[in-house]
């Protein structure tokens, strides 16, 4: 009997596969393709205190084995989420992570306090969005600043707190250690890499913001290395992501030390890609005689 259950901070995931923030909306559209209850969990689109329209101009640009995005946290705001989206999510029998972004510590705090009152299972604090002007990623670059933000949010937050790290952090291991010291219950990494593209005929950057966020299979080797390094440095659970497209990628992240994994860009390539990954993990475990995920976590 194989068992794909994973526990993080007292929350039990039926399997280690979570839909990544910003690539899965609030699940509604995917619910038309498969029962969301199959998933380990869903991380909501990044939420800000107030509704945001996001960025203008080109928002998605394809690169070699990746995409650059500059969505700019378009979202219905915390209250819109609680009113219009959460009731749907709650019915899906899967773990709900509310992904929270913001541009000031105060904004984070107020958002988190509102979410404390709901049935979400965890908060995933996004200190790393490259697509908003102030805050957002700035918090995710310097370990000291991250420490402050996380400490404050920790105090405000009654839910298990996952901090989502940016691969653009100056030193990913120090960053992880700072967030751990500041009270994070878990870490997820990585968010998108700062990248850019130029339209050579117009002689202009493709994106209005110039810099956008790179995701997809192209980033996998770097993301995997970061998960490996971080998992060796801290004792709290880690959710690994970055370019996971199939069960083999997922197993690599788990063997590098991740408790759970998230699937982001992959959802765009195939709406039911997570199901393939879940089934692939099960199949792999059977073939390799692995009874529980723990047996292979960090095994390398």
């Amino acid at each position, binding site marked *: 009997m194989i068992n794909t259950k994973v526990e993080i901070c007292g929350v039990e995931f039926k399997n280690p596969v979570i839909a990544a923030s*910003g*690539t*899965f*909306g609030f699940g*509604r*559209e*995917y619910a*038309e*393709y*498969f029962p969301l209850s199959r998933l380990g969990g869903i991380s909501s*689109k990044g939420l800000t205190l107030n509704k945001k*329209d*996001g960025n*203008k101009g*080109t*928002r*998605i*640009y*394809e690169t*070699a*084995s*990746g*995409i650059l*995005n500059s*969505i700019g946290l*378009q979202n219905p705001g915390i209250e819109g989420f609680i009113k219009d989206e959460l009731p749907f999510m709650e019915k899906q029998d899967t773990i709900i992570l509310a992904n929270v972004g913001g541009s000031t510590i105060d904004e984070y705090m107020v958002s988190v306090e509102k979410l404390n009152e709901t049935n979400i299972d965890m908060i995933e604090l996004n200190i790393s969005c490259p697509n908003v002007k102030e805050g957002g990623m700035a918090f995710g670059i310097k370990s000291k600043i991250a420490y402050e933000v996380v400490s404050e949010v920790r105090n405000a937050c009654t839910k298990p707190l996952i901090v989502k790290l940016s691969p653009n952090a100056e030193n990913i291991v120090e960053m992880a250690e700072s967030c751990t010291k500041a009270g994070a219950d878990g870490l997820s990494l990585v968010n998108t890499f700062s990248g850019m593209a130029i339209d050579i005929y117009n002689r202009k950057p493709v994106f209005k913001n110039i810099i956008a966020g790179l995701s*997809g*299979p192209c980033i996998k080797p770097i993301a995997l290395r970061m998960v490996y390094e971080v998992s060796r440095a801290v004792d709290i659970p880690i959710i690994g992501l970055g370019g996971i*497209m199939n069960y083999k990628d997922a197993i690599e992240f788990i063997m590098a030390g991740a408790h759970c994994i998230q699937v982001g*860009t992959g*959802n*765009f*390539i*195939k*709406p*039911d890609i997570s199901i393939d990954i879940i089934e692939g993990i099960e199949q792999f475990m059977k073939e390799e005689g692995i009874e529980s995920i723990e047996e292979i976590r960090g095994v390398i």
Partner: protein
Amino acid sequence: MKQGYRKGIIHSNIQIATNIYEIKLSPCHPESDSISLTMEESGFQGKPGQFYMLRGWELDPLLPRPISICDISDGIITFLYEVRGRGTHIISKLKKGDTLELLGPLGNGFDLNIEDKIAIVSGGIGVAPLIYLMKGFKGDMDFYCGFRNEAYYLDEIREHVDNTHISTEDGSVGHRGFVTDLFLPKRYDMVLTCGPIPMMNRVVEMCKDKNVPVYVSMESRMACGIGTCLGCTIETTSGMKRVCKEGPVFSGEEVKFND
């Protein structure tokens, strides 16, 4: 539950004008690539204005490409496409018997009232979804289509529509100039348009002036095609809307073109 990506097998893939191709596909039998299905129940579905996401490759390019339904009959789907970049180039090289992956039908599509007198205004490859619209519409309809310097699909159009108005920029067929030179909005109950943004913008303005309802089919770069990436969003008078989900057909009045 909706079906995810499924395989289509190519019946034909032919060039009909410079850089313009017509491809016909039927769904593959899930168990074997070489058996194609044409039965109604398993055939491709969708209404005019809806589109499919197409992949004729594995993971390079990473993203699928949105293409409008140009026709469906007996479960066989036809797309009309212009080779613009890598994706459409790869598709143009596929041969009879090759397969590609399709997700759809997606988007809202056109809604029509059979009693209306309508005008269809197309620019270039924007004609694709309007052909399907034209075939399904049995009411009174005029078709205005503009091309750059080579017209195509005219026979198909003339077969269905009595009143066709053609323009080419180089004058090789029909009026020399823009299709908007020919188009007069005042006579219609509704106008439907698809083509380059400047053209659609002009059509919308002309209709607004005459208080004629107009619907536009918008284009936008897409990643998911199903409403989750928010990559295809456009600004409208009622907020941000997703071309793939709330669109691609929008009321001309709500679209903010100047952006």
